[in-house]
């Protein structure tokens, strides 16, 4: 059984890492978590995003939003790079997530074939 002792060790390690992390200008990922998003698989998309961020040790803010009226394109995920337009990706599968993370968040290139909308910064 896992013990809280392990959690304390993780905390100590995290406290050291946090000082090295910057606080502003981080990339942002926003997941649609309305009823429509959840029914279409938003939970699995979010899990895939967290796994990808963890695997690549990226410093990204992940947040949620409700239904934005594009229910037929759920699950939806937005990426906003600092100072850039907010791009909405739609009809996603968990396989699309690593492509978006690598191409857009790591390399800064919008994944055109998955993008469904653009919100100017």
């Amino acid at each position: 059984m896992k013990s809280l002792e392990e959690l304390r060790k993780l905390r100590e390690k995290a406290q050291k890492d946090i000082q090295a992390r910057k606080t502003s200008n981080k990339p942002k990922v926003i997941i649609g978590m309305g009823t429509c998003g959840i029914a279409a698989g938003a939970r699995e998309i979010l899990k895939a995003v967290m796994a990808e961020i963890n695997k690549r040790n990226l410093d990204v803010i992940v947040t949620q939003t409700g239904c934005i009226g594009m229910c037929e394109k759920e699950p939806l995920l937005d990426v906003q790079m600092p100072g850039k337009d907010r791009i909405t990706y739609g009809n996603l599968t968990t396989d699309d997530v690593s492509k978006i993370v690598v191409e857009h968040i790591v390399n800064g290139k919008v994944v055109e074939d998955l993008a469904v909308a653009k919100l100017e910064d």
Partner: protein
Amino acid sequence: MRELSLHILDIIQNSIRAEAKLVQLLINEDVKNDRLLIEITDDGCGMSQELQKRVLNPFVTSRTTRKVGLGLSLFQQAARQCEGDLKLESTLKEGTVITVDFKYSHIDRAPLGDIVGTIITILSVNPDLDLLYRHLINDNEFIFDTRIIKDELEDVQINLPEILSWLEGYLTEGLEDLRR
């Protein structure tokens, strides 16, 4: 929804929008009496008597961007098709309690599904929310309280990837023990 844990995720989104600080989730698998009970209690803004009467109607929502709100009505439908129901009690400025029960062995009852995934999802995007999760199977009980976790974490956020990954393992082990 294919899993009851997705309904739970959806209903807790209502609590988050109601600015709840603490959400209590109780799951009671009373196999002996063939009942499954799910109770979600929050300390959010609550609903007026008038809204409570209307809110189970799918054409009612507190949102202004559209005219439908399906979360509660879908969950109620899932319960009603399994010899159960969804009930709601709410007091303005105090909070809301949603109680849903099912016939445990009903052929149409969706599986509970990935409860751990639901909890991790909530915590990853709502680090400031507290969650008290109690799961009973007959007389065995598993309790998970983010307030205790946060005491251990001090100033470290609960939604750091390495912390979430530890919590996922912790919850998975806890639930496996409960089913043993």
